[in-house]
């Protein structure tokens, strides 16, 4: 697979993978970029070029693994980006999925127990995902920032992090990833179609997008953030 380069036009990125729209928004890029290249917009908005390319390439190619020299950007940028994705889930994706689910429910004819069950499943899932996001915001990210600060200033880690390590702190992604897949698959394979087809499609589109974004989120954490932090942990231990 061809990966995006600094000289690619930003418009090309969107034409080839429109799922990147919310991703570029997280960097503060808005539409109307004419023929500007990735390099140009990053320069204008003061965004680290390697960081931007790593994110869009990871999002587009599931097997993309950035070369070492490209991961030289600060974990602070990553954390900032991840927090923005959390906001995107809370402020946009959750409410959007729910709007579409309500619409689907109101299109239901006859007894709608099965759809209500899907709604319960979704609510439980949402609860779990919110807990996961909170856990990252309250424990994982502050730990990484403290670790980084200690490393850069050659200081000791604050006492409360004495027994922390990235591997023990980062919550598992597998479970939340599985559930959203199951939710989608149950609707596709096993739900009796007592609803309006278009409303159901809209609901599924939102779930597909959500799933894609979450998988990418997990990849960024597992393949990039984790690697960076393990290196710093290692350096501190052996420093």
């Amino acid at each position, binding site marked *: 697979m061809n990966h995006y380069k600094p000289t690619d036009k930003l418009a090309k990125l969107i034409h080839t993978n429109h799922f990147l729209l919310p991703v570029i928004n997280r960097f503060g890029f808005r539409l109307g970029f004419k023929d500007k290249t990735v390099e140009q917009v990053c320069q204008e908005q003061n965004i680290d070029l390697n960081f931007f390319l790593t994110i869009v390439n990871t999002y587009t190619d599931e097997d993309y693994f950035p070369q070492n020299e490209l991961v030289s950007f600060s974990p602070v940028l990553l954390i900032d980006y991840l927090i923005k994705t959390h906001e995107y889930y809370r402020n946009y994706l959750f409410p959007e999925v729910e709007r579409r689910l309500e619409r689907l429910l109101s299109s239901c004819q006859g007894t709608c127990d*099965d759809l209500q*069950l*899907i709604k*319960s*499943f979704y609510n*439980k*899932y949402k609860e779990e995902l919110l807990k996961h996001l909170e856990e990252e915001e309250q424990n994982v990210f502050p730990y990484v920032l403290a670790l980084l600060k200690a490393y850069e200033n050659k200081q000791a880690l604050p006492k409360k992090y004495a027994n922390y390590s990235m591997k023990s702190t980062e919550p598992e992604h597998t*479970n939340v990833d*599985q*559930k959203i*897949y*199951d*939710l989608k*698959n*149950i609707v596709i*394979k*096993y*739900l*009796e179609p007592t609803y309006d087809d278009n409303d159901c499609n809209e609901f599924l589109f939102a779930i597909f997008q959500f799933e894609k974004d979450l998988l990418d989120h997990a990849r960024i954490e597992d393949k990039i953030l984790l690697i960076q932090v393990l290196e710093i942990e290692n350096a501190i231990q052996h420093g």
Partner: protein
Amino acid sequence: MDKRFIIIHPFEVIRKGLWAILRETFHHEFILLPRVEALKDYSGLQQLHLLVFLSESLRTSENEKFIHHLLGAENKVQYLTIKHLADNLTADSIAIEQAATIIIDTVKCQLEQLKPQNNQFSDLSEREKDVLQLVALGHSNKEIAEKLFISIHTVISHRKNITEKLGIKSISGLTVYAILNKMIDTEHIDPTSLI
């Protein structure tokens, strides 16, 4: 599900000949036996698709009953008859006078039929339905093993198969499936409390 090929024929030359032809295409384990009774040594087999090749003289309902009793509860068993002549062949028989390629094609066709159909509830075995029901009710593997008088290992195998067949991995997802398919008495249990 893993497969085993079991070739039961009184003639060694046929057992070994068939084995030599099949193993080039089918990379499964083979068991070669002269008599049906010798299967007793393999009563521990479980969670397998067994493709049993029986010589024409051994393909009796008595022998099938014996094999079913020995291995049928924990495995999926399918038979192929080994005939001498290619006259009046049925879909589940091969003949030693046939070319190797034809024998292989017949076996391939039979294996296709063994593949689980992924989208139908009826494809869960009775045992798998029992396990799924207990999973949905929130029981642990250990509890399920005790209730059904099977080993934890078997429970785990059943769960793996259920997940493969249904394409649902999480416990809440399996619970939703069980409720949708009326495997849980929702009159007395609030379904949302289970998810």
